[in-house]
């Protein structure tokens, strides 16, 4: 509680840092998520550039085989778990409570705990580079290559422990947001009045809390195999290498929707705002999001068409996978219909949303090609799939997230991002991604497998690989333009006001950035688009009417997170002392947290 006093009184550097460490404000935690994830995004991007530099020509030896394997493993792992997911989490944190008219999330300290666990898990995983032992078994970590027999180093241990820690963060956050969205809605904010971004957050968190336990089981098996000599994936002892693949993809495919649904939610906010029209087919977009999440559970084995599951399984998983194209197509048609007859303002957030649609269509169509099990026998594990995932995840998820960044930035900071630099960022990124990823379709069809650190000139793919490398560096340049934009706009400081875009949802009815209590009075919602509604919403007073009780700061979530980290380091070093020490810190942290008075 001394901490709370510090937050208010002392603006010194130390206390500012302390206030961030102890914060339970969903907006500050959102910013922490965003900044941390962006740093990991840059790191993952740097890894990609080294990969592309190595592949710029055949038989190159810029990096060693093993380092290359570490790079592509960490590029995939970083982008999925440390960049795209937490970048979305930044918006869940910052925007969702504002959109539903709440003052914070349901469990503010659990929220802080999620962030600190995520941060420390990400740091642990990346610390492996300092020991020359970054994970090198691929982001999918197929058994039995990950066994101690074939991967004796610490590389896989860093990966197994890092992912388990990140899973704790994700599940805690998932439960938090499920409860928040269901229980903390303002009066009148019925489910079918929720903004689509909040809806997609809800769906995403439902997938998170159901999918992450599956990979946790798979990882615990692997950890036991590696540490205690169990034999879940050991063929010699009667285990099965395919067990891992089924468990991993049973998590891994829903994970794809964890990555893309939030971006679809952002795009569904941006397009109506910049078309000056309500979202076309709101209910259908919501239901198709739900349907994608449900169908997403029945398609995992389409990652395994080459393992020889037999024609019946192949046919079934082909069909279920194709079905997903229907709700996805429906979303795209509804976005087009939203714009039809609208008044399109092509500001930067809108450009990124349009880019999302244009590129996601490409990734979706190559996805339909993979869904055909027999055709996929040529495509799987080739660069064709690399093209597909990057159209979906860079052309899709990242473009959508940048759309969200440009859209909500003024709300989060109070000032606008520069339009000219924003457009430069968009066009460079759009050109770069097509140059980088389009040739990969052909590289794959011409027979280049993925995950190889070098290739033979005889394949005839040198020129296209070079093109792809140039594209990757253009993407890198576009990201620098974004960073410059932030720096420049911060100095330019064009005030945003409450609602710079003339948007419809609740977060635009309060100041930018919002005060720590968000709403002076909890609003009464009378429509899906409160700001555009004909029936005026009761005005939110400019000053709070009485004292507003907000949760105080607490350092116990961060302490508990440190306990988990120490526990993992103990497992890594196989040191009982470390492990016990971590357990003690964790237990003390949780107890102190539980008995801490809640109010300031």
């Amino acid at each position: 509680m001394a901490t709370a006093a510090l937050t208010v009184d002392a603006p010194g550097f130390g206390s500012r840092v302390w206030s961030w460490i102890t914060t339970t404000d969903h907006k500050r935690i959102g910013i922490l998520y965003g900044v941390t994830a962006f740093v990991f995004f840059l790191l993952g991007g740097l890894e990609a550039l080294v990969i592309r530099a190595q592949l710029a020509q055949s038989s190159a030896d810029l990096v060693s085989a093993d380092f290359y394997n570490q790079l592509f493993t960490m590029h995939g792992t970083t982008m999925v778990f440390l960049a795209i997911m937490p970048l979305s989490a930044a918006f869940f944190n910052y925007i969702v409570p504002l959109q539903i008219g709440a003052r914070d999330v349901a469990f503010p300290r659990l929220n802080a705990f999620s962030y600190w666990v995520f941060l420390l898990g990400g740091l642990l995983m990346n610390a492996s580079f300092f020991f020359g032992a970054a994970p090198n078994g691929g982001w999918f970590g197929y058994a039995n290559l990950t066994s101690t027999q074939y991967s004796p180093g610490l590389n896989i241990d860093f990966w197994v422990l890092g992912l388990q820690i990140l899973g704790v963060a994700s599940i805690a956050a998932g439960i938090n947001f499920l409860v928040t969205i269901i229980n903390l809605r303002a009066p009148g904010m019925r489910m079918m009045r929720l903004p689509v971004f909040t809806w997609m957050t809800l769906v995403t968190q439902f997938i998170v809390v159901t999918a992450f336990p599956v990979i946790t089981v798979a990882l615990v098996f692997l950890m036991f195999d590696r540490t205690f000599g169990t034999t879940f994936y050991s063929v010699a002892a009667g285990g099965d290498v395919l067990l891992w693949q089924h468990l991993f993809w049973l998590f891994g495919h829903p994970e794809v929707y964890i990555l893309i649904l939030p971006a679809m939610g952002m795009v569904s906010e941006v397009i109506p705002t910049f078309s000056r029209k309500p979202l076309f087919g709101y209910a259908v977009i919501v239901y198709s999001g739900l349907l994608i999440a449900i169908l997403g559970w029945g398609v995992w084995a389409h990652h395994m068409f080459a393992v020889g599951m037999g024609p019946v399984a192949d046919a079934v998983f082909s069909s279920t996978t194709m079905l997903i194209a229907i709700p996805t197509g429906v979303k795209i048609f509804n976005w087009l219909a939203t714009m039809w007859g609208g008044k399109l303002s092509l500001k930067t957030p809108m450009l990124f949303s349009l880019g999302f649609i244009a590129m996601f269509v490409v990734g979706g169509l190559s996805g339909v090609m993979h869904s055909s099990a027999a055709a996929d026998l040529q495509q799987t594990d080739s660069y064709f799939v690399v093209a597909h995932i990057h159209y979906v995840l860079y052309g899709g998820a990242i473009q959508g997230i940048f759309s969200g960044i440009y859209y909500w930035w003024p709300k989060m900071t109070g000032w606008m991002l520069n339009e000219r630099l924003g457009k430069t960022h968009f066009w460079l990124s759009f050109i770069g991604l097509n140059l980088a990823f389009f040739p990969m379709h052909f590289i794959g069809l011409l027979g280049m497998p993925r995950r190889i650190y070098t290739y033979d000139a005889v394949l005839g793919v040198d020129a296209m690989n070079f093109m792809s490398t140039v594209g990757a560096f253009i993407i890198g340049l576009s990201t620098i333009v974004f960073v410059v934009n932030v720096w420049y706009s911060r100095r330019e400081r064009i005030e945003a006001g409450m609602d710079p875009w003339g948007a419809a949802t609740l977060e635009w009815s309060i100041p930018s950035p919002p005060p720590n209590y968000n709403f002076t009075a909890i609003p009464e919602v009378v429509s899906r688009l409160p700001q555009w509604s004909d029936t005026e919403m009761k005005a939110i007073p400019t000053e709070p009417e009485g004292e507003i009780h907000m949760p105080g700061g607490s350092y116990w979530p961060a302490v508990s997170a440190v306990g988990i980290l120490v526990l993992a380091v103990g497992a890594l070093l196989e040191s009982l002392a470390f492990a016990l020490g971590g357990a003690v810190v964790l237990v003390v942290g949780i107890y102190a947290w539980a008995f801490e008075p809640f109010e300031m």
Partner: protein
Amino acid sequence: MDITLRHERGRRRLGALLGVMLAGSVVAACGGDYPQSTLHPTADFGYQVDSLFRTIFWWAVAVFVIVETMLMYVIVKYRERPGSPDPRRIHGSTLLEVAWTLAPAVVLVFIAVPTIRTIMNVTGDAPEDALVIDVVGHQWWWEYRYQDFGVTTATDLHVPQGQPVQLRMTSADVIHSFWVPKIGGKRDVMPGRTTFIAFTPDSVGAYYGQCAEFCGESHAHMRLRLMVDPPDDFDTWVRGQQAAPSEAVTLDADAQRGREAFAAVRTPGNHSCLACHAVEGLAFGALGPNLTHLASRSSIAGGILPMDADALTRWLRDPLTIKPGSLMPDIDLTEDEISTLVAYLLTLR
């Protein structure tokens, strides 16, 4: 206005750039000699997969053109202009929702039906008269055992033109994936499981392939060649493989010394050639490739080096630089030992 024009020009230039990229890639993909291409199959398996792929490809192109055209149209037509009226606030249309739910469903039927038909045809089952070859994946090379002929070889897979072939595959260590794009799709090769590929090659030639499942440090170096021989040549090849290698008496002095070096027991034990390699009548190692007819192959070291004196010399000098992580150790052979070993290995025709 000026800015708008500049944007229009920019967009046209971008369109042109993307067009050139696309055209360039297509041209690149169609011409030339691509020994590992999926687009030019030479076996029934490959034809079926290719025809399915082309069906889906053209459907995808049609959908792509329709959706992207609609998108461009909407952007151009409904772009905000000075004096544009405020749009009507339409919330949806049940008729349209039904229409664009059904439209993709119909397209998918046209994709699903040939898909399932092809799945049933490419299961790996082969006719009775098929030549069955056992394929074993190793980190990082391919071993082939022709049980019918008593032949064991590596890297180069010889098959006769026009005869059905079935590959019966398993792995000695981790998961690999056997992929020769010109005969058709890949199939994973797993420890503790047996998987199958069946195909009938119809064109004589040497086709490239390589492991498609990430299998550790030198995954990139796990390559192979599929040699489709005319039936007579194939028979000749089989007889050559069945014959014992040249007898010691026919070896010249260097090769004779090389043979002795090969058979020598060194310390540590895994520095002896015969600990891992077999040469019929001389050595019985089973961890590495069988070298009985090494010199009759087109390549060494898992298909990454040509089969010649220079490459053999480089390989013996420093295997771990050429193929990082390989089980083949750096044996610290003297230059003299290397040259005699190479002379010997070259006699193993």
